């Protein structure tokens, strides 16, 4: 990639070598009364998405999102190429650099200004993720399943259509023919009356002088040729031959290696350290203490505790050196999972502090007079992300500037955090973003990249900081542990008259605990809570736990009513035809009405999240008292799956990630520190126990939804409900393995 400068973004300009760079800047026309406080006082450039066309008519799409395997870079390129009428065989892409012009906040505000119904769950995402940053333009987040449904729909498609119009204008002017008579196809401009055909590149330079429209006419979905196709992902070939470049693969001249340990006790302090033995390890170059640092995290500021790093000529020497350190940490070592849990249950009953999500229909009164009450308490534990690639970053601090190589979900946010920690202006930090070996939300918080930069500053050399798996497991921003309490009143027909739910702690999306079912009286609320462990977004965020809570409890209501759990849900979804269609399709594909033999069972769960409605049916068998997962049927309505194979892959991935958490996932605290350390005590679902997964997509034509996260929330409740169907055992606490044995599928 060439050198990016501020000037590149002014709009359009010539590139060296005869190509052009088309910058599509969408500017607000007028600020009207529909624009709320989110945009007051702003109103600058709203979208920066770039298209490059070279003299050989090769089109390069600049994609402002990171790749962690979700395939968004390919799908976003499809979206722009579609509206541009580009020849897919001559399409390339580049990931956007970490510069403010590619900040995504502008995309969100662009949406507001166009007065299009703004998805309500994005507003808090933007608030939480961006408003807390001192500079609201410093976010370039790949998360929240936002890439396709926001950047794609309101950035890439608009940019492609605007660029196509500019090329047509240029051709009209060059050929002296009416604009409307020009057609485009496969990166060619066509004027039939005069029998002219020219490649886009022929008029690209003139096109670059045109003003891009910010409200170009977009295609009717029925005319899509590239969107909706299962196009192969750009990033896959390099991932099968070892050439894909992750942050861990960065090699710089004169580079040394480091590994680190931060206080294992939360908010602990270094009491004493003897590094004599560590320094005696062959290859160890230095032992460096890093102070407490404060930084922005996605859900509020975070204080990173003191840490000690060992610098060496290789990771192994650094690792051995770290193990040879004699360190004592001071801190509150009285905290354990049990004390955390006891406190949260006290908070659950502290009604004075309760905040309301929704309160309609007088649920408390209905419950006070109802004949039939169903009630239950649910609980989920802390969860680590456990990305395959342990956290690592490479930094080169020299001459008052710093270059950092990292794989992250927010390049701009990381650049700012690193600059702050070094005391530099952010223009003096260059951030190179590489492929991520997993992200799942963990790589949106910059703590480890800041450590790498600080280490390079301290030792005056380029350094690659590699966290051990143990450090990665114990210094996470965890999915919170929390209880959720339910009470429902059932009518004579068994249908719920009132639904009351109180839980502890809330992040986002705000509507995560809300049920789609037709229940007249609902009272849902939470008691805010301080978490002992640092918390952060974990694939699907609050939807992950509320999916388990509400879809298990509605199953309990169905059982109490003596109604089939699919029929029970369907009866309550008559006002929600999209949800109903997804649910019914899932039942059909899973042969719901076909009885299963003894010791077998099906469970169903439905959850809308991030704009996509997903139903999952789990089929399980009990073999020698152990649960075997036979099959998962997934039905999803994302409005439109831009790349159906990529979308299906996200559903499969979301299910396995959810099942790993449901069956095994549990981070516990003892003596003030996280207990688990590696995959032997924080297990992942393996191939031998994983079910066959079938995915069915409903392209309903509704507003495009997300893909990366919505597959996860229904997985745990579908499995728990299937276990109930097979065994009669209702499990209300995760991980499930604490209550029932699971087959590993191992051949032994």
């Amino acid at each position, binding site marked *: 990639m060439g050198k990016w400068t501020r000037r590149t973004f002014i709009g359009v300009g010539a590139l060296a070598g005869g190509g052009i760079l088309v910058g599509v800047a969408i500017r607000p026309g007028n600020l009207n009364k529909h624009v709320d406080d989110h945009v007051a006082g702003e109103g600058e450039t709203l979208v920066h998405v770039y298209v490059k066309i070279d003299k050989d008519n090769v089109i390069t799409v600049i994609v402002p999102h990171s790749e*962690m*395997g979700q395939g968004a870079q390919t799908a976003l390129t499809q979206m722009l190429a579609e509206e541009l009428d580009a020849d897919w065989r001559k399409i390339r892409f580049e990931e956007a650099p970490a510069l403010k012009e590619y900040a995504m906040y502008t995309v969100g505000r662009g949406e507001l200004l166009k007065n299009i119904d703004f998805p309500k769950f994005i507003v808090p995402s933007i608030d939480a993720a961006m408003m807390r940053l001192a500079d609201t333009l410093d976010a370039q987040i790949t998360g929240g399943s936002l890439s396709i449904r926001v950047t794609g729909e309101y950035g890439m498609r608009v940019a492609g259509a605007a660029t196509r119009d500019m090329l047509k204008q240029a051709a009209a002017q060059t050929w002296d023919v009416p604009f409307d008579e020009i057609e485009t196809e496969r990166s060619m401009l066509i004027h039939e009356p005069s029998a002219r055909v020219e490649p886009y590149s022929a008029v690209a330079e003139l096109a670059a002088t045109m003003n891009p429209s910010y409200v170009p006419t977009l295609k009717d979905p029925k005319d899509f040729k590239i969107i909706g196709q299962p196009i*192969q*992902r750009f*990033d*896959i*070939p*390099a*991932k*099968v*031959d*070892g*050439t*894909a*470049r*992750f942050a*861990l*693969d960065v*090699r710089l001249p004169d580079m040394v*290696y480091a590994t680190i340990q931060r206080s294992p006790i939360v908010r602990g302090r270094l009491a004493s350290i003897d590094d004599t033995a560590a320094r005696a390890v*062959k*290859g160890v170059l230095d032992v460096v203490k890093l102070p407490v640092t404060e930084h922005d995290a996605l859900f509020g500021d975070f204080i990173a505790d003191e840490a000690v790093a060992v610098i060496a000529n*290789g*990771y*192994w020497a650094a690792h051995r050196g770290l193990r040879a350190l004699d360190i004592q940490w001071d801190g509150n070592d009285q905290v354990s999972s049990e004390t955390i849990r006891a406190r949260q249950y006290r908070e659950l009953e502290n009604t004075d502090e309760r905040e309301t999500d929704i309160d309609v229909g007088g649920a408390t009164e209905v419950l006070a007079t109802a004949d039939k009450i169903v009630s239950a308490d649910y609980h989920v534990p802390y969860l680590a992300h*456990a*990305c*395959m*690639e*342990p956290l690592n970053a490479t930094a080169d601090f020299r001459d008052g500037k710093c270059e950092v190589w990292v794989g992250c979900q927010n390049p701009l946010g990381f650049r700012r955090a690193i600059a702050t920690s070094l005391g530099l202006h952010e223009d003096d930090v260059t951030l190179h973003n590489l*492929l*991520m*070996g*997993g*992200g*799942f939300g963990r790589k949106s918080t910059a703590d480890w990249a800041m450590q790498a930069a600080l280490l390079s500053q301290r030792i005056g050399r380029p350094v690659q900081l*590699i966290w*051990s*798996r143990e450090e990665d497991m114990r210094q996470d921003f965890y999915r919170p542990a929390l209880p959720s309490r339910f009470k429902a009143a059932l009518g004579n027909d068994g249908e719920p008259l009132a639904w009351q739910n109180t839980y502890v702690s809330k992040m986002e999306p705000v509507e995560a605990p809300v049920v789609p079912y037709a229940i007249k009286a609902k009272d849902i609320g939470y008691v805010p809570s301080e978490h002992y462990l640092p918390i952060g977004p974990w694939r699907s965020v609050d939807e992950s736990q509320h999916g388990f809570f509400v879809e298990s409890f509605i199953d309990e209501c169905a059982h109490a009513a003596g109604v089939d759990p699919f029929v029970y849900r369907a009866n309550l979804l008559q006002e929600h035809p999209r949800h109903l269609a997804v649910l019914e399709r899932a039942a059909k594909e899973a042969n719901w009405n076909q009885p299963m033999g003894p010791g077998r069972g099906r469970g169903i769960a439905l959850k809308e999240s991030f704009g996509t409605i997903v139903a999952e049916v789990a089929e399980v068998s009990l073999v020698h008292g152990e649960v075997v997962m036979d099959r998962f049927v997934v039905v999803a309505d994302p409005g439109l799956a831009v790349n159906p194979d*990529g979308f299906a*892959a996200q559903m*499969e*991935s*979301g*299910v*396995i*990630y959810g099942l*790993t958490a449901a069956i095994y996932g549990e981070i516990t605290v003892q003596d003030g520190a996280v207990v688990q350390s*590696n*995959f*032997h005590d924080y297990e*992942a679902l*393996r*191939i*031998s126990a*994983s079910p*066959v*997964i079938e995915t069915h997509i409903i392209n309903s034509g509704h507003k495009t939804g997300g893909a990366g996260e919505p597959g996860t929330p229904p997985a745990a409740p579908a499995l728990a409900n299937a276990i109930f169907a097979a065994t009669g055992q209702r499990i209300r606490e995760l991980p499930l393995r604490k209550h029932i044995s699971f087959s590993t599928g*191992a*051949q032994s």
Partner: protein
Amino acid sequence: MITLDVNGTRKEVEADPDTPLLWVLREELSLTGTKFGCGIAQCGACTVLIGGQAARACVIPLSNVKGREVTTIEGLAPSPETLHPLQDAWIEHQTPQCGYCQSGQLMAAAALLRRNPNPTDADINSAMEGNICRCGMYDRIRAAIKTAAAQMSTIEPDTPDTEDNADG
């Protein structure tokens, strides 16, 4: 100085004999396709072939591979122009997501197909259960291994494999 054979080339390395092979490959030989995942042979991201058998490079000391034939992901393809049938199948099934575990998955699958050219689901599960994929692409891994096995059985009878021979 320890001598080993990596991807058909003789290499001499300076590292301490107790250094795990993983770090020698990555940091001394610049073969970064083999990944670090756990350091304790629990995840399989570092899987390579030693004498044709799958092994976790993160726990194998350099001294143990002295003079032995090591194959990494960089040496899986028969030539720079031709991919291994497993690599073709991996692309056909769009198997990787983040891709970080995939070098290890492919090497484990290669070891499986060397000893069992026509594996069943149970064979695949058994051979591949040491390799974690946090993106959960297990269905696609199973399908891709079968595709590759079918492909390998139709093109040519088993060509003699130098490493198998070398390993006896």
